[in-house]
């Protein structure tokens, strides 16, 4: 899109691509925001109990701005809209954002298109923590968080910490070592999870429902606990988009660009894991979003992390909120099934239509 000539000639295709990426990202961001508004409206208006849209609107404006629209509604309608639906929709947005940003970060860090937020054992760690919480005969609830959320969060963080520490010993290159250690630790934890499930008896269903993921348990206190972690984590990752771009070029090139590779990698790994742990603690294991959303965004706007990270956040939030709306209207089926059922065919179509040479 440049009109310069002469000296810039060899770089012209690249510059054109950057211009196109910018336009495409504006289109994607605009349609994403529209979809966001739409999904919030649908998610709050829709449910197993029919509430008149005007009542819903009146309840939300009353609660948000204290404005009275001159309508009356029942106490149960208010509870349904304000204490069940609104926190649920918002939680699905927050978790979608977290998984998509974490996925984009892990893919960039590990330079592996198959990486997702769970690749380094976080999922198995969280699931094992949740299973142990279900099996323990204690029920503590602090600020709306039960033992399950607490142990899932700690399990995810503990497993990634173990993977990181273990991977630093030995002679393999850091990336290969991280991936393989993550796989090994994940397998070990998965065996522990299988054992816990085998021993769980009647509690099996509760563990299973955590593994499938969902937003039934969403509430204001849980949202208030998750949102700050995800927001701060994602913001800090966004501020390191330059490092992520550098790391994508390979360690040597990144080092030549003045990036402290080891330090940046550790920081990004920690942030992405924190965001993932906060998400899986409240939602259970929801697959696919973290793997595919960053790819979809890259197919549209190219590999620049400055664009990929914020757009992944938006697309991930919208996709997961839509998936949850569909899951709810189909009678509370697990949301992970919906994301995969809708997302996988869409992703295949997008891959087949991709004209440019796609690279991570």
């Amino acid at each position, binding site marked *: 899109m440049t009109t310069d000539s002469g000296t810039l000639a060899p770089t012209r295709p690249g510059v054109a691509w950057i211009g196109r990426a910018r336009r495409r990202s504006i289109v994607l961001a605009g349609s994403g925001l529209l979809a966001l508004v739409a999904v919030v409206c649908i998610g709050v208006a829709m449910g197993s109990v029919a509430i008149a849209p005007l009542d819903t609107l009146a309840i939300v404006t009353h609660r948000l701005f*204290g404005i009275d629209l001159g309508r009356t509604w029942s*106490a*149960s309608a*208010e509870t349904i809209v304000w204490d069940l639906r609104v926190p649920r929709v918002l939680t699905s947005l927050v978790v979608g954002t977290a998984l998509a940003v974490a996925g984009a970060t892990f893919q960039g860090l590990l330079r592996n298109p198959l990486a997702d937020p769970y690749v380094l054992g976080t999922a198995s760690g969280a699931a094992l923590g949740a299973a142990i919480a279900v099996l323990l005969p204690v029920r503590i609830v602090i600020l709306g968080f039960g033992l399950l959320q607490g142990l899932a969060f700690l399990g995810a963080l503990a497993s990634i910490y173990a993977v990181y520490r273990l991977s630093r010993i030995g002679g393999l290159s850091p990336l290969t070592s991280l991936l393989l250690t993550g796989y090994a630790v994940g397998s070990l934890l998965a065996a522990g999870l299988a054992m816990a499930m085998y021993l769980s008896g009647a509690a099996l269903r509760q563990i299973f429902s955590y593994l499938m993921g969902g937003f039934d*348990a969403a509430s204001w206190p849980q949202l208030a606990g998750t949102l700050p972690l995800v927001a701060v984590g994602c913001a800090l990752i966004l501020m390191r988009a330059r490092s992520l771009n550098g790391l994508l070029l390979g360690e040597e090139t990144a080092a030549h660009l003045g990036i402290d590779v080891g330090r940046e990698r550790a920081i990004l790994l920690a942030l992405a894991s924190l965001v993932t742990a906060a998400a899986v603690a409240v939602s259970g294991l929801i697959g696919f979003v973290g793997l595919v959303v960053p790819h979809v965004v890259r197919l549209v706007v190219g590999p620049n992390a400055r664009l990929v990270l914020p757009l992944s956040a938006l697309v991930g939030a919208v996709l997961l909120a839509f998936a949850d709306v569909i899951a709810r209207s189909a009678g509370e089926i697990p949301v992970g099934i919906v994301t995969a059922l809708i997302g996988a065919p869409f992703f295949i179509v997008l891959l087949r239509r991709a004209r440019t040479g796609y690279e991570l």
Partner: protein
Amino acid sequence: MFRSLRSPRSAPPPGWLLSLVLAILFVVAACTGGGTAISSVAPATTAAGPAASVASTATPAPTASPAFPATLTDDEGTAVTIAGEPHTIVSLAPATTETLFALGVGDRIKGKAQDVFLYPPQAGSVPDVATYDSVDVEKIVALAPDVVFAGGNFLTPPDAIAKLRSLGLTVVVLYAPSVDAVYRDIELTGEVAGRSAQASAMVDRIRAEFESVRAAVAGLPTPRVFYELDATGAIYGPADKSFLAEMIRLAGGTPITTGSADKYDISVERLIEQDPEVILMADAPFGVTAEQVAARPGWKVMTAVKNGQIRPIDDQTVTRPGPRLFLGLALLARTIHPDATVPSAAPIPPVP
């Protein structure tokens, strides 16, 4: 107590944040001497948590009969306060639905858990608000029930129970691991529903019927009975300390159990070693036949298979911990001892 949800709680603050804000408000109110500010804040503290419905301290209720408000302890040890006689009830366990109908308050059930066997038939007109594995919290909230009965031991998902309580609903969790616990649950259900006298009478009736079955099988040999719950993959039968094992003993049989206090799977080797004399197929409704059981590898050495003592049984009647329990015991006794004369009793009729 449910109305209190409408009191100011506009933002989604975590508890500590709310307490902090309240503390600041109190300080501000105290400094400005505005007594009205304190009184307008006070209700918000009670609305902030489930404390409105679940009492934190278990004060024993006065034993005098029309005892509302009453504080009761449910089967999970939670102290639950019933403010007044409930007129809108949600039942998330089929057995409790049966008990409520038999106690004469079936018409107050406005929502129930789906029951594939649908008993009593009158419950058919009550809308389902839960299935085997999910609870529709929205629908329950819309009914604004005075009390919700839930099943313990993960029958009702614990998350759903916590959610309902956090929304200010009164939830009573029932779980009966033994015959005595079934009696207790019927009495507890009666107390909650304001039908204590009827519940006691019902328990007396069930006890009497149990006694007549016991008398009918007394002195008969007690064959080793394997009650097969499922054998599509692993083989499942009663655990050592299960309700089912107790029922088989009361019906004049020696239960073959899994050898574990709470696990329900049993190996073929253990089963062969224990050598059942009677095999009861609770999985018969799912197409399992005596021929199939006899043809399973290794099963032909069992006494029950050699003698053809493999019989189907209606599992739902035997295991549902409600007012039909004595029918289940009589059925079990009759199936274990086909030649004995076990008295047949009329069921406790559900009151429409």
